[in-house]
């Protein structure tokens, strides 16, 4: 189920290694995942659409997202989390920002020929997201799986607004998005993310560096300026949407320990037996 394009980082350690925490004994709760009653009445009033981001989703599964600027190490952390969850028998589905086939062609064309404006850039990503919401996020969530999302709508809220689209508009566009059970925000200073990116692949990508915004003709300088804006907006979003900040300058295993303990919290009443099917062979290696 895993898609490609993940960072090729393999962990040597087993899930029982130093960084591992004990998962909560997955106690089957009789009612499944208990959710607070939805506070969103079906209003017919002609106002801004009520965003689903404001209320918890009603499904049995869990939605866990990672956010952060490029080079924050979020994909690495998500990979380590996935290893751990799988090793403990949790059914996991991974989905990644900008990975839907639906708009791949337009996105490539737009990026290569520099046809994208902030608005179309934003809308193409919204198509990608809506497509994955339908095919990649909702079905596993309804089936009670753990959905791991490498980037979520907050990426759009941060990047697209840094590019100049209206913050309320982009929130309205993404209003069909479900609220994650947990959003981990990997906070890192620009210099460290730059260092990581430059040592890894030596060249910054055009849009990643925000070259399209025209802040500077020097990619490194442009990255610094553009991602500083993004970082600033991310910080505001942390409070607005209750993202859990993680110090992404810490050692990888230390970060992972924090990640796993936060995930543990949201799995407290998760029904692992049910998630693996009625007579499911739990592949729990305990």
């Amino acid at each position, binding site marked *: 189920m895993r898609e490609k394009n993940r960072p090729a980082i393999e962990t040597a350690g087993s899930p029982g290694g130093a960084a591992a925490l004990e998962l909560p004994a997955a106690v089957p709760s009789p009612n499944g995942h208990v959710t607070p009653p939805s506070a969103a009445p079906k209003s017919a009033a002609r106002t801004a659409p009520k965003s689903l981001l404001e209320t918890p989703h009603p499904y049995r599964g869990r939605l866990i997202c990672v956010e952060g600027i490029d080079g924050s190490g979020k994909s690495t952390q998500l990979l380590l989390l996935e290893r751990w969850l799988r090793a403990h028998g949790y059914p996991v589905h991974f989905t990644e920002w900008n990975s839907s086939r639906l*708009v791949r062609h337009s996105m490539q064309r737009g990026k290569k020929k520099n046809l994208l*404006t902030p608005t*179309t850039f934003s809308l193409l990503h919204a*198509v990608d997201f809506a*497509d994955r919401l*339908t095919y990649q996020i909702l079905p596993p969530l309804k089936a009670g799986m753990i959905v791991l999302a490498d980037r979520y709508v907050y990426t759009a809220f941060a990047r697209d607004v840094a*590019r100049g689209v*209206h913050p309320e508009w982009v929130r309205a566009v993404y209003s069909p998005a479900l609220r994650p059970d947990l959003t981990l925000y990997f906070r890192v200073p620009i210099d460290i993310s730059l260092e990581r990116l430059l040592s890894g692949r030596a060249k910054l990508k055009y849009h990643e560096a925000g070259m399209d915004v025209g802040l500077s003709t020097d990619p490194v300088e442009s990255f610094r300026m553009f991602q500083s804006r993004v970082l600033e907006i991310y910080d505001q979003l942390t409070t607005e949407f209750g993202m859990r900040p993680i110090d992404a300058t810490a050692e990888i295993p230390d970060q992972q320990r924090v990640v796993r303990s936060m995930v543990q919290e949201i799995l407290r009443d998760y029904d692992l037996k049910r998630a693996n099917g009625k007579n499911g062979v739990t592949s729990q290696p305990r």
Partner: protein
Amino acid sequence: MASHRSRAKTWYGHGLPHIAKKRLPGHLIAIEGTDGVGRSAQIELLRPWLELEGYAVSNTGWTRSPLLSETINEAKAGHQLTVTTFSLLYAADFADRLEHEILPALQAGFIVIADRYMYTAFARNSVMGADPDWTREVFGMALVPDLVLYLDIDVESLIPRVIMGKGMDYWESGMHLALGTDLFDSFERYQSRLLDEYRRLSSEFGFISVDARLPIEELQAELRKHLAEYLSGASGKPRPDSGDNGASTHKE
């Protein structure tokens, strides 16, 4: 040069904050109407007339953006679209044309004739069951047209035109809505709903409605009458070719 009295343009919603407030001396004319009603034929006739009157004309049409037209066609062929992705693809197509075709042409003083505008999305999305408020928010980046000419027709008159034209197609018959297994029945139901929706929008947004059942020439004459009326009002002068908008840029 700046003497014309063209009404100030307004954005439908939040607009495009990253585009500086630029002067848009051109005119944005939207031609709306359902599939097969004869929009393109009428637009083809309008263009030479306007050019003869001295106006520079630029055309733009629904799903014709260089960025997305292929993607939309592929996606339609693959049947993997949902109401939401459908709407967003249309919005992306629209935004692409808005920023790359419509706004530059308006800045240059052209008359932009839009074959379908955001109202098409409003009508279709309502019929397909998308949240109408959401659709309208998404199209908040749109510029409000100076004039919307609506080609009005009833479904009984529409059917023979479509059959004798390019035939009933899967999407325009609303087959994706599973209204029935029969193409004809589905077309009739889907288009009736669309037409109801268009009429509602017509009164909400003040379209100028013309009877699309008229013969081509008569319909064209109607459209020209309304356009000429608008243009003389906009330029403050009765003779269209003395207007300073289109004429001055045309000579360049």
